[in-house]
């Protein structure tokens, strides 16, 4: 079952002679348990697509369905964007973006709290998630006291806290060295498999391409190629 359906989605900035089509009509689906990459150079349209899927940027045309709910259909569908994001999408950032004044556990629990969980319940579930990500021993540390790799694992924990069907990762390995980047990729793959989530990663990091199930190549706003890993890889 497709967690994400992109159907003929395009985005044009400006009007008339000044109009720039940042994303040409694009269609693809991402299934549960799939680890997908949007690969392309700067200006290829991958960030535009990520913003559209994140309900931050309204596409000019097309239809986007996330987890069975239509979020755009040639225009907004009246969905509460923030509520939808906090309930259905997990975000992983290039610079981790942990809240610096919250501890590791509080950073993860924050998403649960925003989704209405009680303080104790949120803390317990955050601990469990940190255990799953093998970083429970740093639960009471502040982000500033963690290494880059540890911070990224906490950021992944925060992205998974609301048990989303869709995880969006923006250059998650860009700030890490190859070894740590490989570990993060392995973790994302594990998440996709074990938690049955679709993980879509925006990247231009060719070092990590081999690990993805599907790679969508974008160039000049156009989906130029789709590469799928061999079954069982």
């Amino acid at each position: 079952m497709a967690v994400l359906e992109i159907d003929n989605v395009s985005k044009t900035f400006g009007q008339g002679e000044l109009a720039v089509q940042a994303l040409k009509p694009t269609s693809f689906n991402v299934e549960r348990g799939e680890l997908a990459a949007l690969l392309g150079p700067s200006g290829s349209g991958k960030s535009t697509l990520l913003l559209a899927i994140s309900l931050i940027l309204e596409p000019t045309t097309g239809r986007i369905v996330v987890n069975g709910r239509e979020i755009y259909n040639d225009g907004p569908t009246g969905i509460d964007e923030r509520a939808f994001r906090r309930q259905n999408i997990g975000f992983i950032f290039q610079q981790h973006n942990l809240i610096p004044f919250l501890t590791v556990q509080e950073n993860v629990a924050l998403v649960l709290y925003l989704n209405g969980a009680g303080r104790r319940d949120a803390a317990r579930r955050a601990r469990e998630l940190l255990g799953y990500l093998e970083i429970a021993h740093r639960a009471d540390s502040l982000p500033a006291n963690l290494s880059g790799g540890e911070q990224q694992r906490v950021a992944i924990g925060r992205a998974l806290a609301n048990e989303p069907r869709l995880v969006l990762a923006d250059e998650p390995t860009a700030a890490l060295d190859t070894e740590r980047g490989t570990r993060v990729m392995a973790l994302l793959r594990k998440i996709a498999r074990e938690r049955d989530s679709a993980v879509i990663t925006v990247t231009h990091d060719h070092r990590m391409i081999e690990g993805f199930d599907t790679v969508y190549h974008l160039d000049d706003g156009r989906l130029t190629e789709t590469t799928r890993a061999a079954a069982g890889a």
Partner: protein
Amino acid sequence: MDLALKDIRRHLGKFVATIAGVSMLLAIVLVMNGIYQGNIADGVWLIDNTATDLWVVERDRGGPFNEPSRMPRDSYKSVAATPGVARASPLVLYTAQREIDGASQQFTIIGYDVFGGLGGPGRIVRGRAIEAAHYEMLADEKLGLALGAKVTLGTHAYSVVGVTHGAVDAGGNPLVYLSLPDAQAVQFQKDNRALVAARAANLKRLESAGYTAAQAERLLPLLSAEGDTINAVLVRLAPGADAGAVAAHIRDWLYFNVYTGAQERTLMLEGRLRKMSAVLGLFRALLVLVSIVIMALIVYVLTIEKIRSIATLKLIGAPNWVIVRLILEQSLSLTLASFAVAYGLRELIVPVFPRTLTFLPGETAITFAVILVGGVIASLMAIWHALRTPPQLALGG
């Protein structure tokens, strides 16, 4: 999860330093409240605490507090004979600055009829009232004199026989009570050389007017009678007497100005105190404004420092109220903590402040409310900026 408190805990040093700065400003605001009210309380203290129904002063004068008033001493006898007057007493009051206990001190001397006359001190907290016609005095404790202390005023030494509390003139200076003749003696005391010079000048004036030396010598005392004046006559009305009618009678027949206590109060509040009160009011308003502007800048800077975190919060789906609460709570915490520290500072300042500070609970409450509203207003700019921050700011490197 209280994000504001967690941020404060994380940046406690910065927060405490901010509170220290803002609280000092607010402490000045609170003290100025005290000065403002103290100024009014001091200004009308003598009027409110002088047991009299009417103040009789020199004609066409706003005396005896706002303008000098001089009347012949015996004028109180004419006033006493007015229908409806139960008692009339002479009163002398003037400001003096003398060296007491090695320090130059300013005070106001009140001279009154110590044998049953009006105008004496209300409550004596230590010692007794003046019982002798001469050389006894009462002093307010603000002057720092002990019972039995000797104070030289002019050529005589006066014994402190009683001490009052909170007896001050319109400028906040302590009051000293003397018998009427003693007060006049101190007021008109002249240096011997000045007396000799004045006598020589008067003789010369008489001789140049055609008097012989012997005639001039005889006439001389008539020109030297300036010491027998008073500044006001205090009137106690007879039971059932109409104050307006008595005042009109004194005005029409004795050619003096007459004020009730309430009129003297109005003269004081609208005369001497008005400009000072306006200045203090203006300064208070400016200080409150400056405090709010500083708080606004601090809250704004604190918000800008975590703008990426705010963008992240928006991206992961935090509703606006979470962000508004974060900023507003910090602003209010800053305001409340600063006000509490300022209040404590005010209490420390009161005992050592050189002027009377009067605090009205209602005014303190209003100041608190203004500061609290100011704290909310101070956070508006930061809230506006935070709510306009695009969530995509959290994306990218």
